[in-house]
């Protein structure tokens, strides 16, 4: 029993060491802020620890844990009734600052997306998953991924143009 536990812990450490950075960045895009992202990854990895036998037996452990992360994000959103979503990004003065301000704009636009659209956009365009991989991670159909990603993208574009940005990234 003790040996099994030691093996589990060792494998978990190795996996966490390689996956932490990527998971944290994905979570950051989903949660919209650092502390929320860390909490999200913490919860997801704790769940992964509980189901470690399934994680290690999975064809792609990273995909398995990513799916836990997405589920955790969805579950958290369902609990958080206080989060207020808007259809359109609120009007704001044209930004004048350098890149960090543009990042704030993008992060705010991303946070304004409904959670499923946010997940679809992040998985498709940051994680660079295919539509079928995204569907597997979100536990939905490819059609849902297409529609959610397209709507999310359209809203980001709308937010971009409303804020007077040629691109959200701004000057380079």
């Amino acid at each position: 029993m003790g040996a099994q536990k030691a093996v589990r812990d060792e494998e978990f450490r190795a996996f966490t060491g390689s996956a932490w950075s990527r998971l944290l960045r994905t979570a950051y895009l989903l949660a919209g802020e650092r502390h929320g992202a860390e909490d999200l990854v913490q919860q997801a990895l704790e769940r992964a620890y509980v189901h470690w036998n399934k994680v290690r037996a999975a064809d792609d452990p990273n995909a398995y844990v990513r799916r836990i992360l997405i589920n955790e994000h969805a579950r958290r959103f369902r609990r958080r009734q206080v989060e207020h979503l808007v259809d359109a990004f609120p009007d704001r003065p044209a930004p004048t600052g350098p890149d960090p301000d543009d990042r704030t704009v993008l992060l705010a636009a991303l946070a304004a997306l409904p959670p499923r659209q946010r997940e679809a956009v992040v998985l498709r365009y940051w994680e660079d998953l295919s539509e079928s991989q995204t569907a597997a991670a979100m536990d939905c159909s490819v059609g849902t991924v297409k529609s959610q990603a397209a709507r999310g993208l359209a809203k980001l574009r709308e937010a971009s143009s409303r804020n007077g940005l040629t691109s959200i990234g701004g000057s380079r």
Partner: protein
Amino acid sequence: MSTESWPGDLGDFGGPRGPWNGDAEAAEAAVSWELGELADSVEAGPVPYERLLDGGRRRLRRRRLLTAAAVAMAVALVGGAGAVTAGGGYRPGGSPVAVPPASGFSLTAAPATGTPSAAPSGTARDPFTPIRVKVGEGISKGRALEAWIALWPAAPTAEAGREQGRRIWEERHAVDPHLPPDPEPSALPTPQRGVLLHNPAVVWDPHKDRADIYLVVDGKREPGDYVDAVPAPGGTTPGEPDDAINGVLLTRLVNPAASSPEMVVVRVGPEVAKVEVDWKAGGAVSAVPVGVGDSTSRWYAVVRTPGAMDNTVISFAEDGTVLRTQNTWW
């Protein structure tokens, strides 16, 4: 803001209007690049190994304790049901005998007694392979009642939805030979078609699982089931936020022809850990909602106290706090 071109090979997408105003491919490339920039701005820092391990171990311990508790509860429930059969309740051919409140007469299954016939969450969802789980059981008039759910995962296409509907109908028809064929919506006049929009047995929705709720009496499935549409995990159900399903009473399973006792099956949200039904006529019974596969819905079932209506149901969260109190129509 600059309108300079994008870095690297994205530069061609920019043009005078900029990438966000260009075609869809350019927009995808642009947002991909921007998200990468944003994500890379996060300093990952050192991995909090010990914190993660501590949290994981804590969860593991809690899970093992809960499993042990559920098994113990299931054993207690089986013993309790036997005692009631022997000492009270309804006897075959006899008149009703008063049953003390919360005696286990109207009994529901604890999660551990659910017996899925297919793999639960974590496996691929097959719209043609239902997951069956017993969500409650009890004894009345000397007959063993069981409420079952056959959850058919959402069909991704209209064609698969029709095929799934056909299979559900075949299964129901095998139990009830008088069951009429499901109508084809397009073959009906518009007013009737409108009514069908509320019939989940007929209308396909890619974001909804179909749940066939049925009663098994003395080991035999009874006619008079009910097909419901419930949100599929990860699906979108416009106009029906998650909290709208909480505490909705779904159906009452009755077989009047056989003078079958009644059982009530209720769908609740995942936040409901326990319910208590206070019968207006006196007495109470508690029930633990049961999950089916990876569905976000839970179900509980109770044997209805004859003649009682307008009862009260109190829903509890896992930590024991009262979520809501509702009056029932049953």
